[in-house]
């Protein structure tokens, strides 16, 4: 499968590419929005600020190109901030409009009994036996201060408990997939998740 990892310099494209290549798939960073047609799966990874990332996607011409690809049914995986951009809006530094593929908004994790950022390895809870086959109770690596408050529970496929909060760990709606954790940084279990995704698309 040919995998294109959107490269707008908002984070670690290299690790994502390497993880897919390790699984013997053909992944490459893609910097030209005109070339998205060539890939079977697109990946939007990133860390940082919601509005900065959305701004860069527009500036480099990826925002419209991605909307077209998703509307045409191309599978898209969002990782961390990449997933959060699927929301209607982000509330970091004012309100920024997101892609709106998955209704909801991205807001700061409430400081309760636990520290913010939510940082480190935490176990997910899921009922998805396909994407999380073999890793349905595993710990994955999380690294975020904002979380995706998803409007329709049907779009949620995995959650993670953090203090008093239940945060979204993974979402799916049709051909759009998103994970709050970093599968490319989650050792064997992260690779297994990516492998499951690739097999489900094959």
């Amino acid at each position, binding site marked *: 499968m040919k995998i294109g990892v959107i490269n707008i310099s908002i984070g670690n494209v290299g690790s994502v590419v390497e993880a897919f290549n390790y699984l013997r798939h053909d992944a490459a960073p893609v910097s030209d929005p005109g070339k998205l047609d060539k890939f079977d799966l697109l990946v939007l990874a990133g860390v940082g600020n919601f509005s900065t990332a959305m701004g860069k996607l527009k500036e480099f011409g990826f925002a419209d190109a991605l909307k077209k690809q998703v509307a045409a049914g191309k599978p898209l995986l969002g990782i961390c901030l990449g997933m959060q951009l699927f929301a209607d809006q982000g509330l970091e530094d004012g309100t920024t409009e997101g892609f709106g593929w998955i209704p909801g908004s991205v807001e700061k994790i409430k400081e309760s009994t636990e520290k913010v*950022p939510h*940082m*480190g390895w*935490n176990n997910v809870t899921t009922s998805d036996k396909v994407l999380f086959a073999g890793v349905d109770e595993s710990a994955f*690596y999380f690294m975020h201060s904002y979380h995706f408050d998803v409007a329709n529970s049907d779009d949620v496929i995995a959650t993670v408990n953090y203090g008093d909060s239940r945060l979204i760990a993974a979402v799916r709606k049709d051909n759009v997939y998103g994970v709050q954790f970093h599968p490319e940084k989650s*050792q064997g279990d*992260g690779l297994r998740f990516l492998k499951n995704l690739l097999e489900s698309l094959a």
Partner: protein
Amino acid sequence: MIAKRIIPLFLLKGKRLVKGTQFNGPFVDVGDPLSQAMIYDAQGAEEIAVVDIEATSQNRCINTDVINTMIRKCRLPISAGGGISTLEHANSCFAAGADKIIVNTSAVTNPSFVKELGKEFGAQSVVVSVDFKREGDKVFPVTHSGTKPVDRDLEELLLELVEAGAGEIILTSVDREGTLSGADLDVYKSLTGKISVPLIASGGLGSYDDMVELFKSSDCSACALGKMLVLRDYDIVRIKAYLTGRKIPVRDA
């Protein structure tokens, strides 16, 4: 519940890893950064931190090629530091694939730099490293690899750095570093409940029970291990088995 993290802390000198005592030499060569990183990745470390110990004194930042080779072969988060004093330095580390950057001297001497980094890269990517020394009952921060005392209250400084946008704090006891004599527990205990971001204890951990005591007596989210891993007969698999037996929540990897 989120697991306590075990973080091998690599000290980089040139292209090799070294280990000394209390931030000083003689430095013993402890291997190649890539092969060591792959070993701890395989053992189930939660993260790896790599710091270039000569960068600040040589007025440069960490060699990003080293970061890049580690990132390519490992499947765990890697934070990198040493001499990062500008946004360009930070950018070059992220471009090389670092998941987080570690800032020490430039953050402590100029907390507004932390603010800039947080705004540009997000607080979760910015780790602030603070070193301290103890003289009797008095603890005080130090910079420039432990050589320059800072006339500030340690807790007050940490709170200011969190306020400025630090996503995590690595707090290192210079006196304990490389001594395997246990962490300076009083300091981590006294900070419990006060720091709203994850706190990583560093310096002195030398046995299983040192780690148990640290996690039982403080709310530290993680610990950095140096000499215990690289120059003694411990590995992360056995450490985790021991911690699990003592009811410390660690990840089963």
